[in-house]
């Protein structure tokens, strides 16, 4: 089989990436199918829901025809798929914007928040884990132990309020918790939607500092709440590697301690990668309380609004975007996981 032979000649990381990318297409199709059925499974008639209780049968029938609801399910599915492919996720009657526009406005806000929060979480969790294992009984170990104990019991809104109270209200170090950028400052022209990056591209120093300082408190909140779990996992995994025979052998071979720690950490990576991806996916919707407190205008807030308003098009759009995001995060995690562990066969 020449095809198989060519495949096995490819470098391992190319094979890993191609396999994973190949899986994204059917997975995304499955997600779309589920979001489509989601609305079909809701009780009641969408046309009646849209027009309200006082609509006449004729107007409902007309709307049904207009929406294509009189067609068979496969035909509707096909139309839905085509619409999604064209970027048409429907209109939101409450914001009177196309759902896609709404989402495109809010997604970068949440992604920026989650992105920086996760970077901080991973760095803090891994550093705490490594230092506490390498120097057991040291101050970092003690702090990590106490923090690990309470971390599971800290609610995010409480941490957020404490931070706002102390750092903004009492000390005045942090900016006011009102949105992503100071209302008096012009936001940089939208390129990526990430204010920190856009302001750097635009060379706008004031906008950058404003956006960055507004990020501090919410990012800190999310990191404080989520670092504990990741730290415990990283500790277990790193301790296993650090106390293994091969590490001792490296020491007996005179390899410097820094190098040994790096190798042990490299061995401890896989579980850290999977838990990080899990937390990241989870945060997309779970950061809603933090978003609300800091008036962030993110995806989570939008989704909650949509649910409260029974805005089905918006919910559908949110679920679609959220699943696509989670899919991407998990795919990246899978790829990293397989790269981190050469024993996995591809």
């Amino acid at each position, binding site marked *: 089989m020449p095809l198989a032979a060519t495949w096995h000649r490819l470098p391992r990381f190319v094979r890993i990436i191609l396999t994973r990318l190949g899986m994204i297409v059917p997975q995304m199709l499955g997600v779309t199918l589920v979001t489509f059925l989601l609305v079909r499974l809701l009780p009641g008639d969408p046309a009646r829901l849209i027009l309200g209780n006082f609509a006449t049968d004729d107007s409902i029938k007309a709307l049904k025809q207009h929406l294509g609801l009189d067609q068979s399910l496969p035909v509707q599915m096909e139309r839905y798929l085509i619409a999604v492919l064209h970027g048409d996720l429907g209109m939101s009657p409450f914001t009177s914007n196309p759902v896609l526009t709404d989402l495109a406005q809010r997604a970068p806000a949440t992604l920026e928040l989650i992105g920086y929060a996760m970077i901080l979480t991973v760095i803090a969790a891994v550093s705490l884990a490594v230092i506490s294992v390498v120097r057991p009984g040291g101050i970092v170990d003690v702090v990590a132990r106490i923090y690990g104990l309470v971390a599971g019991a800290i609610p995010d809104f409480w941490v957020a309020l404490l931070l706002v109270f102390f750092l903004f209200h009492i000390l005045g170090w942090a900016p006011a918790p009102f949105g992503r950028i100071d209302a008096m400052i012009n936001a940089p022209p939208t390129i990526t939607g990430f204010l920190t990056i856009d302001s750097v591209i635009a060379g706008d120093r004031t906008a950058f500092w404003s956006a960055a300082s507004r990020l501090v408190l919410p990012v800190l909140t999310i990191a404080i709440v989520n670092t504990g779990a990741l730290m415990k996992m990283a500790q277990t995994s790193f301790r296993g590697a650090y106390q293994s*025979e*091969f590490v001792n*052998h490296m020491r*007996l*071979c*005179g*390899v410097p301690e820094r190098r040994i720690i790096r190798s042990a950490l490299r*061995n401890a990576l896989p579980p850290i990668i999977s838990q990080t991806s899990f937390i990241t996916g989870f945060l997309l919707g779970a950061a809603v309380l933090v978003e609300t407190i800091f008036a962030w205008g993110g995806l989570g807030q939008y989704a909650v609004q949509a649910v409260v308003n029974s805005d089905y098009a918006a919910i559908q759009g949110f679920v679609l975007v959220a699943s696509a995001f989670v899919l991407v995060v998990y795919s990246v995690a899978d790829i990293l996981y397989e790269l981190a562990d050469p*024993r996995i066969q591809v």
Partner: protein
Amino acid sequence: MHAPLDATPLLELDGLTVGIGGDAAPILNAVTCTLRRNEILGIVGETGAGKSLLTKAVLGLVPEGLRVLGGDVRFDGCSVFDRRNEDLRDLRGGKIGLIGTNAKALLDPVAPVGRQIARVLRAHARVGESEAQSRAIALLREVGITDPERRAKAYPHELSGGMAQRVVIAMALVTDPAVLLADDATLGLDATVQAQVLDMLVQRCRRRGLGVMLVTHDLGIVRNCCDRIAVMREGELIEIENVDAFLRGPRQAYSRSLLEAAKARPTPSIARHTASERPLLQAEKLVKIYGGPFTHQVRALDGVDFSIRPRETLALVGESGSGKTTAGQCVLRLTNPTSGRILFDGEDVTDLSAQKFKPWRRRIQMVFQEPYVALNPRWRVRDLIGESFRLLDPMSRGERERRISALLDAVHLPSSLASAFPHELSAGEQKRIGIARALATDPDLVIFDEPTTALDIRVRAQIIDLIRDLQSRRGMSALFITHDLNSVRSLAHNVAVMLHGRIVEYRSAEDIFATPREAYTRKLLDAELPVEDPPGRATNVSEAIAV
């Protein structure tokens, strides 16, 4: 302690004492010895003698909970324990190389082995990554790895045990150390691989004038590689002697018992069979294929025939992957052969259902290789042995107790052990319990899977004596699966040599050891490192190379 030294010692152990401190007895007690340039010192002792701890203490790294209580280790005249961090790090792996046992566990599983060797070099010398890599590749070639460029990119899980061991040796040699500590460096390797690895080690040491401490529990290795031997017992060095003088007659009684235990015993004679006597077990054209039609197929057994008559012992000999264990599993119906027949006492048992085969199980029993793994850790010895009685007719509680203590007696264990748990027993005792379990049903045939590997010298001899004794008293037949030729000499009447799932030579034990016909059999016999000179063969590796 020893004759006047011809050179300043490389390494001096001076009353080295290591322990947990307090009133507890030290684990290493006042160990004093020297190692010179161009010398290979064999350190021999049984499990728990403190051999491995000795190598770690020499490098100034005793395991957590232990500390050096007294004495000194001097390398090139300077104390190891006085050295500070950087200096000590330079000593470890730089001046003194360590080759550990169980190489696969010593290698970083997620780094290519070439890079791991380079890592050690770069920890001690100012060289760039590519320079270090090419030195690693050159060294891999030197330790006998074919295609080292490709192997250097391999990860540990892609290497065989023998290859991983060579990588660990290369790691120890890459910095050109003056002293090499080899801690059971060839444990668990096939005999031919072990011979190659030892040979290479000895050659390199001779060429570069290294001082080598070869820790082992195999006196054959000492005889064939070392200049001097040091015997350890319970943390003390009780005897240091030149190897030749030691083999002529050790001074200490303990050393004598070790040497005696390592020697092969004459094969037990059995009453000659009349030709008409029916074989107890016959295997005919056994074939076992692993893997399906769409995956890679492995022919673990490829047309294997053998037979065992009553009171007779057949040894299946071969290296890992030769199919000898699969053959044993087929006989016991632990796995079903793809084709071929198994006749037991004249009846075809190949295709019997599990239910129908059950009555046969009391007549065919097996002693598993790893006794600790095969014994349920939460059961007491009494229940472990009693479990086999389920195959027999129901018996009263008193009868059961009587039988258990009779079985314990048969394997020379005190009946007080009946209420012990497996973890409270030594490796030799566990092996005996494994044997007692197999004997519980009074079987006609017992399959022994590697009964003597990984055991200490004297324990191994005791197990061999026990099996011989049981066979002569109970008149059972045995199928012996092993790669330990020394034990085959002492136990087997017939030997079948296996290679790649086939039997390449199948004759009586005397004939096969005296006049091996096949090239592979000769290779196996040559790889053996006996304690005594077999007639017509005198190959002392170290002497041969020194000349």
